[in-house]
Protein backbone atom coordinates (compact mmCIF):
# COMPACT_ATOMS: atom_id res chain seq x y z
CA UNK A 1 0.00 0.00 0.00
CA UNK A 2 2.66 2.51 1.08
CA UNK A 3 5.03 0.98 -1.45
CA UNK A 4 2.54 1.59 -4.26
CA UNK A 5 2.05 5.15 -3.11
CA UNK A 6 5.82 5.74 -3.16
CA UNK A 7 6.23 4.10 -6.54
CA UNK A 8 3.54 6.32 -8.02
CA UNK A 9 5.19 9.48 -6.71
CA UNK A 10 8.59 8.28 -7.88
CA UNK A 11 7.28 7.71 -11.40
CA UNK A 12 5.56 11.07 -11.54
CA UNK A 13 8.68 12.92 -10.43
CA UNK A 14 10.84 11.09 -12.95
CA UNK A 15 8.37 11.75 -15.77
CA UNK A 16 8.66 15.42 -14.94
CA UNK A 17 12.39 15.25 -15.67
CA UNK A 18 11.67 13.43 -18.89
CA UNK A 19 9.48 16.28 -20.06
CA UNK A 20 12.13 18.85 -19.13
CA UNK A 21 14.81 16.92 -21.02
CA UNK A 22 12.68 16.63 -24.14
CA UNK A 23 12.39 20.41 -24.24
CA UNK A 24 15.93 20.35 -25.66
CA UNK A 25 15.78 17.46 -28.14
CA UNK A 26 19.04 18.26 -29.97
CA UNK A 27 21.12 18.32 -26.79
CA UNK A 28 19.48 15.13 -25.64
CA UNK A 29 20.26 13.20 -28.80
CA UNK A 30 23.82 14.44 -29.12
CA UNK A 31 24.63 13.46 -25.55
CA UNK A 32 22.94 10.07 -26.00
CA UNK A 33 24.97 9.32 -29.10
CA UNK A 34 28.12 10.46 -27.30
CA UNK A 35 27.56 7.93 -24.51
CA UNK A 36 26.82 5.28 -27.10
CA UNK A 37 30.15 6.01 -28.79
CA UNK A 38 31.90 5.53 -25.44
CA UNK A 39 30.48 2.02 -25.14
CA UNK A 40 31.35 1.23 -28.75
CA UNK A 41 35.02 1.98 -27.95
CA UNK A 42 35.01 -0.70 -25.27
CA UNK A 43 33.43 -3.20 -27.65
CA UNK A 44 35.95 -2.31 -30.37
CA UNK A 45 38.78 -2.87 -27.90
CA UNK A 46 37.45 -6.32 -26.97
CA UNK A 47 36.99 -7.14 -30.63
CA UNK A 48 40.66 -6.34 -31.33
CA UNK A 49 41.79 -8.33 -28.27
CA UNK A 50 39.84 -11.39 -29.36
CA UNK A 51 40.94 -11.14 -32.99
CA UNK A 52 44.37 -12.44 -31.87
CA UNK A 53 43.39 -15.14 -29.36
CA UNK A 54 40.33 -17.44 -29.21
CA UNK A 55 39.91 -16.91 -25.49
CA UNK A 56 41.17 -14.65 -22.72
CA UNK A 57 41.56 -16.07 -19.21
CA UNK A 58 39.17 -18.87 -20.19
CA UNK A 59 36.48 -16.67 -21.76
CA UNK A 60 35.44 -16.56 -25.43
CA UNK A 61 34.42 -13.39 -27.26
CA UNK A 62 30.64 -13.62 -26.84
CA UNK A 63 30.95 -14.90 -23.28
CA UNK A 64 33.07 -11.85 -22.44
CA UNK A 65 30.53 -9.61 -24.18
CA UNK A 66 27.72 -11.16 -22.11
CA UNK A 67 29.72 -10.32 -18.96
CA UNK A 68 30.36 -6.79 -20.21
CA UNK A 69 26.70 -6.21 -21.11
CA UNK A 70 25.63 -7.10 -17.55
CA UNK A 71 27.65 -4.23 -16.06
CA UNK A 72 26.93 -1.82 -18.92
CA UNK A 73 23.21 -2.39 -18.40
CA UNK A 74 23.52 -1.57 -14.70
CA UNK A 75 25.54 1.61 -15.25
CA UNK A 76 22.90 2.77 -17.74
CA UNK A 77 20.03 1.93 -15.36
CA UNK A 78 21.83 3.72 -12.52
CA UNK A 79 21.64 6.94 -14.52
CA UNK A 80 17.90 6.53 -14.95
CA UNK A 81 16.88 5.32 -11.54
CA UNK A 82 18.60 7.57 -9.05
CA UNK A 83 21.21 9.89 -10.52
CA UNK A 84 19.82 12.51 -8.13
CA UNK A 85 22.10 11.02 -5.46
CA UNK A 86 24.85 12.97 -7.13
CA UNK A 87 23.51 16.06 -5.33
CA UNK A 88 23.76 14.59 -1.82
CA UNK A 89 27.15 16.06 -0.81
CA UNK A 90 26.17 19.51 -2.03
CA UNK A 91 22.79 19.38 -0.27
CA UNK A 92 24.42 18.38 3.00
CA UNK A 93 27.13 21.02 2.90
CA UNK A 94 24.91 23.89 1.83
CA UNK A 95 22.10 22.97 4.20
CA UNK A 96 19.68 22.58 1.30
CA UNK A 97 18.81 19.20 2.77
CA UNK A 98 16.52 21.14 5.16
CA UNK A 99 14.03 21.62 2.32
CA UNK A 100 13.98 17.90 1.72
CA UNK A 101 13.55 17.01 5.38
CA UNK A 102 10.47 19.18 5.93
CA UNK A 103 8.57 17.75 2.97
CA UNK A 104 6.16 14.86 3.69
CA UNK A 105 7.99 12.30 1.56
CA UNK A 106 10.90 9.94 2.32
CA UNK A 107 14.14 12.00 1.98
CA UNK A 108 15.86 9.19 0.12
CA UNK A 109 13.14 9.14 -2.53
CA UNK A 110 13.34 12.90 -2.94
CA UNK A 111 17.11 12.84 -3.34
CA UNK A 112 16.91 10.03 -5.91
CA UNK A 113 14.52 11.99 -8.10
CA UNK A 114 16.33 15.33 -8.04
CA UNK A 115 17.86 14.64 -11.42
CA UNK A 116 17.46 12.22 -14.29
CA UNK A 117 20.37 11.39 -16.53
CA UNK A 118 18.54 10.60 -19.75
CA UNK A 119 21.71 10.45 -21.80
CA UNK A 120 22.05 6.88 -20.69
CA UNK A 121 19.41 5.83 -23.19
CA UNK A 122 22.05 5.09 -25.84
CA UNK A 123 24.02 3.03 -23.36
CA UNK A 124 20.88 1.20 -22.24
CA UNK A 125 19.96 0.38 -25.82
CA UNK A 126 23.34 -1.03 -26.77
CA UNK A 127 23.76 -3.07 -23.58
CA UNK A 128 20.34 -4.70 -24.04
CA UNK A 129 21.13 -5.37 -27.71
CA UNK A 130 24.46 -7.01 -26.82
CA UNK A 131 22.97 -9.01 -23.98
CA UNK A 132 20.30 -10.34 -26.36
CA UNK A 133 22.79 -11.04 -29.13
CA UNK A 134 25.15 -12.83 -26.73
CA UNK A 135 22.34 -15.07 -25.47
CA UNK A 136 21.38 -15.88 -29.07
CA UNK A 137 24.98 -16.66 -30.02
CA UNK A 138 25.78 -18.73 -26.95
CA UNK A 139 22.45 -20.60 -26.77
CA UNK A 140 22.87 -21.41 -23.06
CA UNK A 141 20.72 -24.33 -21.90
CA UNK A 142 18.84 -22.43 -19.20
CA UNK A 143 16.14 -24.09 -17.16
CA UNK A 144 13.71 -22.39 -14.84
CA UNK A 145 16.37 -22.06 -12.10
CA UNK A 146 18.87 -20.34 -14.34
CA UNK A 147 16.20 -17.96 -15.60
CA UNK A 148 15.18 -17.14 -12.05
CA UNK A 149 18.85 -16.62 -11.15
CA UNK A 150 19.25 -14.30 -14.15
CA UNK A 151 16.29 -12.13 -13.14
CA UNK A 152 17.37 -12.07 -9.48
CA UNK A 153 20.87 -11.06 -10.54
CA UNK A 154 19.58 -8.17 -12.62
CA UNK A 155 17.50 -6.88 -9.69
CA UNK A 156 20.24 -7.48 -7.11
CA UNK A 157 22.86 -5.81 -9.30
CA UNK A 158 20.74 -2.68 -9.62
CA UNK A 159 20.63 -2.43 -5.84
CA UNK A 160 24.35 -3.20 -5.58
CA UNK A 161 25.64 -0.67 -8.10
CA UNK A 162 23.47 2.18 -6.86
CA UNK A 163 24.25 1.46 -3.20
CA UNK A 164 27.98 1.35 -3.96
CA UNK A 165 27.84 4.81 -5.47
CA UNK A 166 25.48 6.05 -2.78
CA UNK A 167 27.77 5.14 0.12
CA UNK A 168 30.72 7.47 -0.58
CA UNK A 169 28.30 10.37 -1.13
CA UNK A 170 26.90 9.80 2.38
CA UNK A 171 30.38 10.41 3.78
CA UNK A 172 29.56 14.10 3.36
CA UNK A 173 27.50 13.86 6.58
CA UNK A 174 30.82 13.44 8.39
CA UNK A 175 33.32 15.24 6.14
CA UNK A 176 31.00 18.08 5.05
CA UNK A 177 32.86 18.09 1.75
CA UNK A 178 30.67 18.88 -1.24
CA UNK A 179 32.72 17.04 -3.85
CA UNK A 180 31.92 13.71 -5.45
CA UNK A 181 35.60 12.80 -5.76
CA UNK A 182 35.39 9.29 -4.33
CA UNK A 183 32.29 8.36 -6.28
CA UNK A 184 33.81 9.74 -9.47
CA UNK A 185 36.94 7.75 -8.81
CA UNK A 186 34.88 4.64 -8.14
CA UNK A 187 33.32 5.16 -11.55
CA UNK A 188 36.70 4.30 -13.07
CA UNK A 189 36.92 1.08 -11.09
CA UNK A 190 33.94 -0.15 -13.13
CA UNK A 191 36.40 -0.63 -16.01
CA UNK A 192 37.74 -3.68 -14.18
CA UNK A 193 34.29 -5.22 -13.95
CA UNK A 194 33.82 -5.04 -17.72
CA UNK A 195 36.23 -7.93 -18.29
CA UNK A 196 36.68 -11.42 -16.78
CA UNK A 197 38.03 -11.27 -13.24
CA UNK A 198 40.23 -14.28 -13.96
CA UNK A 199 42.51 -12.05 -16.07
CA UNK A 200 43.61 -10.05 -13.00
CA UNK A 201 46.04 -10.74 -10.18
CA UNK A 202 44.86 -12.04 -6.79
CA UNK A 203 44.88 -8.67 -4.98
CA UNK A 204 42.68 -7.09 -7.66
CA UNK A 205 40.33 -10.08 -7.56
CA UNK A 206 40.12 -9.71 -3.79
CA UNK A 207 39.34 -5.99 -3.97
CA UNK A 208 36.63 -6.48 -6.58
CA UNK A 209 35.02 -9.27 -4.56
CA UNK A 210 35.22 -8.04 -0.96
CA UNK A 211 36.01 -4.32 -0.90
CA UNK A 212 34.36 -2.89 -4.02
CA UNK A 213 32.20 -5.90 -4.89
CA UNK A 214 31.56 -5.01 -8.53
CA UNK A 215 32.43 -8.58 -9.56
CA UNK A 216 29.02 -9.62 -8.21
CA UNK A 217 27.38 -7.60 -10.98
CA UNK A 218 29.23 -9.06 -13.94
CA UNK A 219 31.82 -11.78 -13.37
CA UNK A 220 30.17 -14.08 -10.81
CA UNK A 221 26.66 -14.17 -12.29
CA UNK A 222 28.03 -14.55 -15.82
CA UNK A 223 30.25 -17.43 -14.68
CA UNK A 224 27.26 -19.21 -13.09
CA UNK A 225 24.96 -18.58 -16.05
CA UNK A 226 27.50 -19.66 -18.68
CA UNK A 227 28.82 -22.63 -16.70
CA UNK A 228 32.35 -21.26 -16.21
CA UNK A 229 34.53 -22.88 -13.55
CA UNK A 230 34.89 -20.77 -10.38
CA UNK A 231 37.46 -21.22 -7.61
CA UNK A 232 34.67 -20.71 -5.06
CA UNK A 233 31.38 -21.62 -6.77
CA UNK A 234 29.32 -20.48 -3.77
CA UNK A 235 30.43 -16.89 -4.43
CA UNK A 236 28.68 -17.19 -7.79
CA UNK A 237 25.48 -18.58 -6.33
CA UNK A 238 25.35 -15.82 -3.72
CA UNK A 239 25.71 -13.05 -6.33
CA UNK A 240 22.03 -11.97 -6.23
CA UNK A 241 22.31 -11.47 -2.45
CA UNK A 242 25.26 -9.05 -2.61
CA UNK A 243 22.92 -6.24 -3.70
CA UNK A 244 20.44 -6.44 -0.81
CA UNK A 245 23.28 -6.75 1.73
CA UNK A 246 25.12 -3.63 0.51
CA UNK A 247 21.81 -1.78 0.19
CA UNK A 248 21.00 -2.49 3.85
CA UNK A 249 24.42 -1.20 4.87
CA UNK A 250 23.90 1.91 2.76
CA UNK A 251 20.48 2.48 4.33
CA UNK A 252 21.93 2.18 7.84
CA UNK A 253 24.69 4.68 7.01
CA UNK A 254 22.16 7.10 5.52
CA UNK A 255 19.98 6.90 8.67
CA UNK A 256 22.96 7.51 10.95
CA UNK A 257 24.02 10.39 8.75
CA UNK A 258 20.58 11.98 8.88
CA UNK A 259 20.58 11.76 12.68
CA UNK A 260 23.93 13.51 12.70
CA UNK A 261 22.89 16.22 10.27
CA UNK A 262 22.86 19.68 11.87
CA UNK A 263 22.20 21.90 8.83
CA UNK A 264 24.40 24.88 8.05
CA UNK A 265 22.78 27.34 10.42
CA UNK A 266 21.44 29.93 8.02
Amino acid at each position, binding site marked *: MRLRHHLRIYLRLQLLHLRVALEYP*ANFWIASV*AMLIGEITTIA*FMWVLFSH*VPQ*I*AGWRFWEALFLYALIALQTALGGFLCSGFWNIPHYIRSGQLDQVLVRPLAPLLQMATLHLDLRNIGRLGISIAILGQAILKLQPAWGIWQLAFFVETLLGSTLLLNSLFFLPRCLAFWTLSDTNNIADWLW*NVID*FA*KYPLSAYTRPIQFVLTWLIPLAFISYYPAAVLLGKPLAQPWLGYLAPLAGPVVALIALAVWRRGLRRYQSSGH
Partner: protein
Amino acid sequence: MMMTDLLIDAVRRAPRPKYLALLLMQIQQAIAYPAGTLIDMLASLLSIATVYYLWRAVFAAQPQIEGFDWRAMQAYILVSNAIFALLGATSTRAMMNSIRMGAIATDLLRPYSYIGAQFAQVLGRAATLGAFSSAATVLIGFVLVGMPAPPTLAAAGLFLLSVGLSFLISFLLNFLLALLCFWTKDSEGLLWAHGVITFIFSGGMAPLHFLPYWLQSVAFALPFQGMIHTPLLIYLGAAREPELWAALLLQALWVLILCVLVHLLWARALRAADLPGG
Protein backbone atom coordinates in the same frame (compact mmCIF):
# COMPACT_ATOMS: atom_id res chain seq x y z
CA MET B 1 69.21 56.15 -34.48
CA MET B 2 66.63 54.72 -36.78
CA MET B 3 68.19 51.29 -36.37
CA THR B 4 68.04 51.29 -32.55
CA ASP B 5 64.44 52.56 -32.62
CA LEU B 6 63.50 49.72 -34.88
CA LEU B 7 65.30 47.25 -32.65
CA ILE B 8 63.63 48.47 -29.47
CA ASP B 9 60.32 48.37 -31.25
CA ALA B 10 60.99 44.83 -32.38
CA VAL B 11 61.82 43.73 -28.82
CA ARG B 12 58.68 45.39 -27.52
CA ARG B 13 56.66 43.61 -30.14
CA ALA B 14 58.35 40.30 -29.49
CA PRO B 15 55.67 37.86 -28.40
CA ARG B 16 57.69 36.26 -25.62
CA PRO B 17 56.56 38.05 -22.45
CA LYS B 18 52.80 38.00 -22.94
CA TYR B 19 52.65 34.39 -24.12
CA LEU B 20 54.98 33.39 -21.33
CA ALA B 21 52.62 35.14 -18.92
CA LEU B 22 49.69 33.13 -20.27
CA LEU B 23 51.70 29.94 -19.94
CA LEU B 24 52.65 30.70 -16.35
CA MET B 25 49.03 31.52 -15.52
CA GLN B 26 47.99 28.02 -16.59
CA ILE B 27 50.74 26.51 -14.47
CA GLN B 28 49.52 28.47 -11.46
CA GLN B 29 45.96 27.31 -12.03
CA ALA B 30 46.99 23.70 -12.29
CA ILE B 31 48.99 23.82 -9.08
CA ALA B 32 46.17 25.52 -7.19
CA TYR B 33 44.03 22.37 -7.07
CA PRO B 34 46.36 19.45 -6.30
CA ALA B 35 43.60 17.13 -5.00
CA GLY B 36 41.70 17.14 -8.27
CA THR B 37 44.92 16.55 -10.20
CA LEU B 38 45.85 13.63 -7.98
CA ILE B 39 42.42 12.00 -8.30
CA ASP B 40 42.54 12.36 -12.09
CA MET B 41 45.93 10.69 -12.10
CA LEU B 42 44.78 7.80 -9.93
CA ALA B 43 41.80 7.31 -12.22
CA SER B 44 43.98 7.14 -15.31
CA LEU B 45 46.31 4.68 -13.56
CA LEU B 46 43.30 2.45 -12.91
CA SER B 47 42.35 2.34 -16.56
CA ILE B 48 45.97 1.61 -17.51
CA ALA B 49 45.94 -1.31 -15.06
CA THR B 50 42.80 -2.84 -16.62
CA VAL B 51 44.27 -2.65 -20.10
CA TYR B 52 47.61 -3.98 -18.84
CA TYR B 53 46.14 -7.13 -17.30
CA LEU B 54 43.94 -7.84 -20.31
CA TRP B 55 46.89 -7.68 -22.68
CA ARG B 56 48.88 -9.82 -20.26
CA ALA B 57 46.16 -12.48 -20.50
CA VAL B 58 46.23 -12.20 -24.30
CA PHE B 59 50.01 -12.57 -24.48
CA ALA B 60 49.88 -15.52 -22.05
CA ALA B 61 47.90 -17.37 -24.72
CA GLN B 62 49.75 -15.94 -27.73
CA PRO B 63 53.38 -14.96 -26.98
CA GLN B 64 53.96 -13.18 -30.29
CA ILE B 65 51.50 -10.85 -32.08
CA GLU B 66 52.53 -8.92 -35.22
CA GLY B 67 56.15 -8.70 -34.06
CA PHE B 68 55.24 -7.69 -30.49
CA ASP B 69 56.24 -9.82 -27.51
CA TRP B 70 54.97 -9.15 -23.99
CA ARG B 71 57.93 -6.94 -23.04
CA ALA B 72 57.44 -4.71 -26.05
CA MET B 73 53.72 -4.58 -25.29
CA GLN B 74 54.39 -3.54 -21.68
CA ALA B 75 56.38 -0.57 -22.95
CA TYR B 76 53.68 0.17 -25.55
CA ILE B 77 50.89 0.30 -22.96
CA LEU B 78 52.73 2.49 -20.47
CA VAL B 79 54.49 4.85 -22.88
CA SER B 80 51.39 5.36 -25.03
CA ASN B 81 49.42 6.28 -21.92
CA ALA B 82 52.21 8.62 -20.80
CA ILE B 83 51.99 10.40 -24.17
CA PHE B 84 48.19 10.56 -23.88
CA ALA B 85 48.56 12.19 -20.47
CA LEU B 86 50.75 14.85 -22.05
CA LEU B 87 48.36 15.43 -24.98
CA GLY B 88 45.26 15.28 -22.81
CA ALA B 89 45.90 18.59 -21.05
CA THR B 90 44.00 20.56 -23.69
CA SER B 91 41.86 23.66 -23.41
CA THR B 92 39.52 22.57 -26.20
CA ARG B 93 36.39 22.50 -24.07
CA ALA B 94 37.07 25.99 -22.74
CA MET B 95 37.66 27.32 -26.26
CA MET B 96 34.46 25.68 -27.50
CA ASN B 97 32.47 27.20 -24.69
CA SER B 98 33.89 30.64 -25.37
CA ILE B 99 32.84 30.26 -29.01
CA ARG B 100 29.36 29.09 -28.07
CA MET B 101 28.83 31.76 -25.45
CA GLY B 102 30.40 34.52 -27.52
CA ALA B 103 33.15 35.29 -25.00
CA ILE B 104 35.66 34.72 -27.79
CA ALA B 105 34.77 38.20 -29.10
CA THR B 106 36.65 39.73 -26.17
CA ASP B 107 39.60 37.41 -26.69
CA LEU B 108 39.81 38.49 -30.31
CA LEU B 109 40.13 42.13 -29.26
CA ARG B 110 43.14 41.37 -27.08
CA PRO B 111 46.55 42.28 -28.45
CA TYR B 112 47.80 38.79 -29.15
CA SER B 113 47.43 36.11 -31.76
CA TYR B 114 44.55 33.94 -30.62
CA ILE B 115 46.23 30.74 -31.80
CA GLY B 116 49.48 31.71 -30.10
CA ALA B 117 47.67 32.37 -26.85
CA GLN B 118 45.86 29.03 -27.02
CA PHE B 119 49.15 27.27 -27.68
CA ALA B 120 50.84 28.98 -24.73
CA GLN B 121 47.98 27.88 -22.46
CA VAL B 122 47.98 24.28 -23.66
CA LEU B 123 51.76 24.19 -23.25
CA GLY B 124 51.39 25.48 -19.69
CA ARG B 125 48.88 22.78 -18.82
CA ALA B 126 50.96 20.08 -20.47
CA ALA B 127 54.03 21.23 -18.52
CA THR B 128 52.20 20.75 -15.20
CA LEU B 129 49.17 18.42 -15.26
CA GLY B 130 50.37 16.50 -18.30
CA ALA B 131 54.03 16.21 -17.37
CA PHE B 132 53.24 15.15 -13.80
CA SER B 133 50.90 12.37 -14.83
CA SER B 134 53.17 11.38 -17.69
CA ALA B 135 56.26 11.16 -15.48
CA ALA B 136 54.39 9.08 -12.91
CA THR B 137 53.32 6.61 -15.61
CA VAL B 138 56.84 6.28 -17.00
CA LEU B 139 58.26 5.90 -13.50
CA ILE B 140 55.81 3.10 -12.72
CA GLY B 141 56.77 1.55 -16.05
CA PHE B 142 60.47 1.47 -15.25
CA VAL B 143 60.35 0.73 -11.53
CA LEU B 144 57.33 -1.54 -11.01
CA VAL B 145 56.82 -3.13 -14.42
CA GLY B 146 60.44 -3.12 -15.60
CA MET B 147 59.58 -2.11 -19.15
CA PRO B 148 62.44 -1.81 -21.66
CA ALA B 149 63.99 1.60 -22.45
CA PRO B 150 64.66 2.75 -26.04
CA PRO B 151 67.45 0.60 -27.56
CA THR B 152 69.92 3.47 -28.17
CA LEU B 153 70.46 7.01 -26.97
CA ALA B 154 69.79 8.22 -30.52
CA ALA B 155 66.46 6.41 -30.52
CA ALA B 156 65.60 8.08 -27.21
CA GLY B 157 66.41 11.50 -28.68
CA LEU B 158 64.41 10.90 -31.81
CA PHE B 159 61.57 9.58 -29.66
CA LEU B 160 61.44 12.88 -27.76
CA LEU B 161 61.47 14.78 -31.07
CA SER B 162 58.62 12.60 -32.26
CA VAL B 163 56.64 13.28 -29.07
CA GLY B 164 57.13 16.99 -29.73
CA LEU B 165 55.64 16.61 -33.21
CA SER B 166 52.89 14.46 -31.72
CA PHE B 167 52.07 17.32 -29.35
CA LEU B 168 51.83 19.77 -32.27
CA ILE B 169 49.56 17.44 -34.25
CA SER B 170 47.32 16.97 -31.23
CA PHE B 171 47.13 20.72 -30.57
CA LEU B 172 46.30 21.55 -34.19
CA LEU B 173 43.64 18.84 -34.42
CA ASN B 174 42.03 20.07 -31.21
CA PHE B 175 42.10 23.63 -32.47
CA LEU B 176 40.43 22.58 -35.74
CA LEU B 177 37.82 20.72 -33.75
CA ALA B 178 37.07 23.74 -31.60
CA LEU B 179 36.71 25.88 -34.74
CA LEU B 180 33.94 23.56 -35.93
CA CYS B 181 31.95 24.96 -33.01
CA PHE B 182 31.48 28.17 -35.01
CA TRP B 183 29.16 26.15 -37.25
CA THR B 184 27.76 23.36 -35.11
CA LYS B 185 27.15 25.30 -31.86
CA ASP B 186 27.51 21.99 -30.07
CA SER B 187 30.59 20.93 -28.18
CA GLU B 188 29.91 17.71 -26.29
CA GLY B 189 29.15 15.54 -29.32
CA LEU B 190 32.22 16.82 -31.18
CA LEU B 191 34.49 16.22 -28.19
CA TRP B 192 33.28 12.65 -27.66
CA ALA B 193 33.51 11.71 -31.32
CA HIS B 194 36.98 13.25 -31.53
CA GLY B 195 38.09 11.38 -28.42
CA VAL B 196 37.01 8.01 -29.80
CA ILE B 197 38.47 8.58 -33.27
CA THR B 198 41.76 9.69 -31.73
CA PHE B 199 41.82 6.72 -29.37
CA ILE B 200 41.36 4.18 -32.16
CA PHE B 201 43.32 5.72 -35.06
CA SER B 202 46.30 7.07 -33.11
CA GLY B 203 47.24 3.62 -31.84
CA GLY B 204 46.05 4.42 -28.32
CA MET B 205 43.61 1.52 -28.18
CA ALA B 206 46.03 -1.04 -29.61
CA PRO B 207 49.11 -0.96 -31.85
CA LEU B 208 47.85 -0.08 -35.35
CA HIS B 209 49.27 -3.31 -36.75
CA PHE B 210 46.90 -5.25 -34.48
CA LEU B 211 43.86 -3.80 -36.24
CA PRO B 212 42.19 -5.57 -39.17
CA TYR B 213 43.80 -4.68 -42.46
CA TRP B 214 41.06 -2.37 -43.79
CA LEU B 215 41.10 -0.35 -40.56
CA GLN B 216 44.90 -0.09 -40.71
CA SER B 217 44.76 1.42 -44.19
CA VAL B 218 42.29 4.03 -42.92
CA ALA B 219 44.54 4.77 -39.94
CA PHE B 220 47.68 5.21 -42.05
CA ALA B 221 45.90 7.75 -44.27
CA LEU B 222 45.03 9.98 -41.29
CA PRO B 223 47.08 12.36 -39.12
CA PHE B 224 46.21 10.60 -35.83
CA GLN B 225 48.90 7.93 -36.37
CA GLY B 226 51.50 10.63 -35.66
CA MET B 227 50.25 10.98 -32.09
CA ILE B 228 51.03 7.52 -30.64
CA HIS B 229 52.01 5.10 -33.40
CA THR B 230 55.06 6.98 -34.71
CA PRO B 231 56.69 7.85 -31.37
CA LEU B 232 56.20 4.29 -30.14
CA LEU B 233 57.66 2.86 -33.35
CA ILE B 234 60.82 4.82 -32.58
CA TYR B 235 60.78 4.04 -28.86
CA LEU B 236 60.64 0.30 -29.47
CA GLY B 237 63.35 0.50 -32.11
CA ALA B 238 60.99 -1.15 -34.57
CA ALA B 239 61.76 1.35 -37.36
CA ARG B 240 65.03 0.93 -39.34
CA GLU B 241 67.03 3.85 -40.79
CA PRO B 242 65.13 4.91 -43.93
CA GLU B 243 61.76 3.97 -42.45
CA LEU B 244 62.55 6.00 -39.36
CA TRP B 245 63.23 9.21 -41.26
CA ALA B 246 60.17 8.66 -43.41
CA ALA B 247 58.00 8.30 -40.29
CA LEU B 248 59.36 11.52 -38.77
CA LEU B 249 59.01 13.34 -42.08
CA LEU B 250 55.40 12.21 -42.36
CA GLN B 251 54.71 13.58 -38.89
CA ALA B 252 56.26 16.91 -39.84
CA LEU B 253 54.28 16.94 -43.07
CA TRP B 254 51.03 16.47 -41.16
CA VAL B 255 51.96 19.36 -38.87
CA LEU B 256 52.40 21.51 -41.97
CA ILE B 257 49.12 20.38 -43.55
CA LEU B 258 47.21 20.96 -40.33
CA CYS B 259 48.78 24.42 -39.99
CA VAL B 260 47.47 25.32 -43.43
CA LEU B 261 44.04 23.91 -42.59
CA VAL B 262 43.87 25.87 -39.34
CA HIS B 263 44.86 29.01 -41.20
CA LEU B 264 42.16 28.54 -43.86
CA LEU B 265 39.42 27.53 -41.43
CA TRP B 266 40.26 30.32 -38.98
CA ALA B 267 39.67 32.98 -41.64
CA ARG B 268 36.39 31.35 -42.67
CA ALA B 269 35.27 30.87 -39.07
CA LEU B 270 35.68 34.57 -38.31
CA ARG B 271 33.52 35.38 -41.31
CA ALA B 272 30.95 32.80 -40.27
CA ALA B 273 31.04 34.02 -36.67
CA ASP B 274 27.57 34.73 -35.44
CA LEU B 275 28.21 35.29 -31.78
CA PRO B 276 25.60 35.92 -29.14
CA GLY B 277 26.09 39.44 -27.81
CA GLY B 278 26.31 40.48 -24.22
